[in-house]
């Protein structure tokens, strides 16, 4: 049987212009209309840094105000103190930390799993632009006397609406990252063989999906109550209640949500710096997964109650699950730290800046978790003291240090250039010092009954004030380190293009796209360059 296929003739009379491909976008249109995941990732990163400046300035004002323990009014009036404090916390977590993670993940996760782009690139772009606009409105609402503790009712409602939009944007961004990790892995790469950062991004997104919608639901209730129930609301007890409905998100155990990516970042950096493999890949994934389980904390929020007194108390403190979560969270951290220490011991370490940032992050996270275990012990009576704020700062600053480690490691992908190594190492050391200086005095003053928001009834005023000054110095140092790191980031972004793989990376994002490695072994998907020296397994 013979089949003859004849190509259809081209339609005659078609205008030549209609057959030309569309002209590529130029100038600002490249950024505004992009669905390209690397560009979207960069936009998340740089916008997050812009919002960090807001959070840093607000935090510095709070620290200065805290020095004098006799009361408020040195720099900030009583009614402004609460607003500044909440701006510092909200901008630092929801406008800086989580978006910075999304920026790195949007850029790196698709490359790590061998996908050409992030899942739903237009949704990822929509998430970014929503975050940018809503974040700006959120900050503007504080300037209009809104936000938690605000006295202008309409500005408070504007804040709540903007915050819901920010949460929706972050949730959408997390869905894009999670879908990429689940559904766009290269054939042959099972989830158990995915790089640790991809796995930690998936765990982060999963916990975020269980946390951020809860916060959004509470904010919706707050909005309707405040809007239609008057400034006092029917069960909110005024704009103070707005703060109580949000603050659980950065308290133990929910605060660990922001630190989950750190484990994946450090887990990917250490084997590269040590020039060897992480032998217990699945165990490391288990540690990250377990940490994610203990980072789910919507159940531990203050009671939802029409009674203002009951609504202000975190009823979970002192309960068995709260103790369990607070102590058990240390186990996966110690497990992963042990695996990474073993990797360093077996390898030949090159002291990269990213490694120093990562180690600093892991140390601070361990310290923060230990601090959290202390705070959970009810007889010590550390709840609402500066010991609790020290724990929050330990964990959140560990997340900052870890994300900076990720930026230093993946700078060739995320920024296009490499960060200068010597300044990066110096800043990592200063960042560690600043974090300790910021948090440790607060932990000590917490034992001296210094309350974290409104001064306190401490018996040892001189000691507490000296500790507060030390904490302020630490805070200023952290802000300076962040600003200097931003300078390095800009230098890398605007400088010469880096080599594709300056560190000898192990995972797919460093591979030459023209020759993707075959994925046939049982080991995690690694480039084969270091395999022969470290394993006896036959490599394809």
């Amino acid at each position: 049987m013979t089949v003859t296929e004849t190509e259809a003739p081209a339609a005659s009379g078609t205008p030549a212009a209609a057959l030309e491909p569309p002209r590529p976008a130029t100038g600002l249109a490249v950024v505004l209309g992009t669905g390209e995941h690397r560009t979207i990732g960069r936009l998340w990163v740089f916008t997050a840094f812009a919002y960090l400046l807001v959070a840093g300035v607000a935090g510095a004002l709070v620290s200065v105000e805290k020095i004098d323990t006799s009361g408020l009014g040195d720099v900030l009036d009583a009614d402004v103190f609460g607003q500044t404090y909440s701006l510092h916390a909200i901008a630092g977590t929801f406008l800086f930390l989580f978006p910075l993670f999304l920026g790195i993940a949007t850029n790196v996760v698709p490359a790590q799993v061998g996908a050409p782009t992030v899942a739903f690139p237009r949704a990822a772009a929509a998430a970014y632009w929503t975050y940018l606009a809503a974040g700006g409105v959120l900050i503007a609402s504080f300037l209009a006397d809104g936000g938690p503790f605000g006295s202008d009712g309409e500005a408070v409602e504007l804040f709540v609406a903007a915050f819901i939009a920010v949460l929706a944007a972050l949730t959408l961004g997390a869905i894009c990252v999670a879908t990429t990790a689940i559904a766009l892995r290269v054939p042959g790469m099972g989830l158990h063989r995915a790089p640790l950062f991809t796995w930690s991004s998936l765990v982060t997104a999963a916990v975020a999906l269980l946390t951020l919608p809860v916060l959004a639901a509470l904010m919706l209730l707050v909005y309707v109550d405040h809007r239609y129930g008057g400034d006092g609301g029917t069960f909110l007890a005024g704009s103070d209640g707005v703060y109580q409905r949000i603050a659980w998100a950065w308290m133990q155990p929910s605060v660990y949500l922001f630190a989950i990516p750190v484990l994946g970042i450090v887990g990917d950096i250490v084997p590269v710096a040590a020039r060897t493999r992480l032998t217990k890949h699945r165990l490391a994934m288990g540690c990250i997964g377990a940490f994610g389980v203990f980072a789910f904390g919507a159940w531990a929020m203050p009671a939802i109650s029409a009674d203002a007194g009951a609504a202000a108390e975190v009823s979970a403190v002192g309960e068995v699950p709260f103790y369990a979560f607070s102590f058990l969270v240390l186990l996966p951290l110690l497990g992963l730290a042990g695996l990474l220490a073993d990797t360093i011991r077996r390898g030949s370490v090159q002291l990269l800046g990213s490694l120093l940032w990562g180690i600093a992050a892991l140390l601070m996270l361990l310290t923060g978790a230990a601090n959290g275990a202390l705070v959970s012990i009810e007889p010590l009576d550390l709840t609402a003291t500066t010991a609790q704020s020290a724990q929050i700062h330990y964990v959140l600053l560990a997340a900052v240090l870890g994300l900076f480690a990720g930026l230093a490691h993946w700078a060739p992908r995320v920024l296009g250039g490499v960060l200068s190594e010597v300044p990066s190492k110096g800043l990592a050391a200063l960042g560690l010092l600043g974090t300790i200086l910021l948090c440790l005095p607060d932990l000590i003053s917490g034992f001296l009954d210094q309350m974290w928001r409104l001064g306190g009834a401490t018996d040892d005023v001189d000691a507490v004030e000296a500790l507060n000054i030390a904490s302020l110095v630490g805070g200023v140092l952290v802000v300076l380190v962040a600003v200097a790191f931003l300078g390095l980031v800009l230098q890398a972004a605007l400088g010469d293009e880096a080599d594709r793989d300056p560190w000898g990376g192990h995972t797919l994002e460093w591979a030459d796209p023209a020759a993707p490695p075959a994925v046939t072994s049982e080991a995690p998907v690694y480039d084969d360059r270091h395999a022969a020296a470290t394993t006896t397994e036959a490599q394809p």
Partner: protein
Amino acid sequence: MAAATATTPERLPLHLDAVEPAPLRRPRVLLVGTALAAAGSITFFGALLAAYVALRAEHVAGGEAWLPDGVTIPLSPGNMGMITLVMSLVTVQWAVHAGKLRDRAHAYLALALTVLFGVAHVVQLVYLFTEWGLPLTDEVTVQAVLLYTVLGAHLAMVAAALVFIVLMLLRSLGGQLTGPDVEGLSAAALYWYVTVAIFAVIWYAILIVK
């Protein structure tokens, strides 16, 4: 004009060693993304319902009736809304089935009926709002805040799910979503199932138990 000629033998020899392995099937991206969005929606409504239950329990523990004097929640609109959504479950699954069989006419009909049921549900709930005598403009109570927020948020979810279904209907009209990989239709159907399941919980916890 270019021409190509190919010859097909009467019987193909079996060279199994030369057969290419079947391509690996990845999880379907739109379906996975929709499942994650649905999980987020479940979390969202779980939090709203938890707030409702907590505040209701606190109120009732004080010895008061939950609903204020003069406020009744009529059963008929809520029940009809539930029944309408249950019927839409059949039609949305019918659309997916027809899509798999490349039966476009039935797929269009089933999707159109699903949209019709969805709109009817919205109308029934809006009617309920006019009947229960719960003001949201003055003398606002905690009951009004909770009921309007929970049911209003679900109406927004129904609207979003309907937009999703209409979008998939339009793509079906463009010939994209038929055949074995009816991913878009399946994704829209999944979100619709979750929407209906959430309303079933709201219907029982709020409109029946009150």
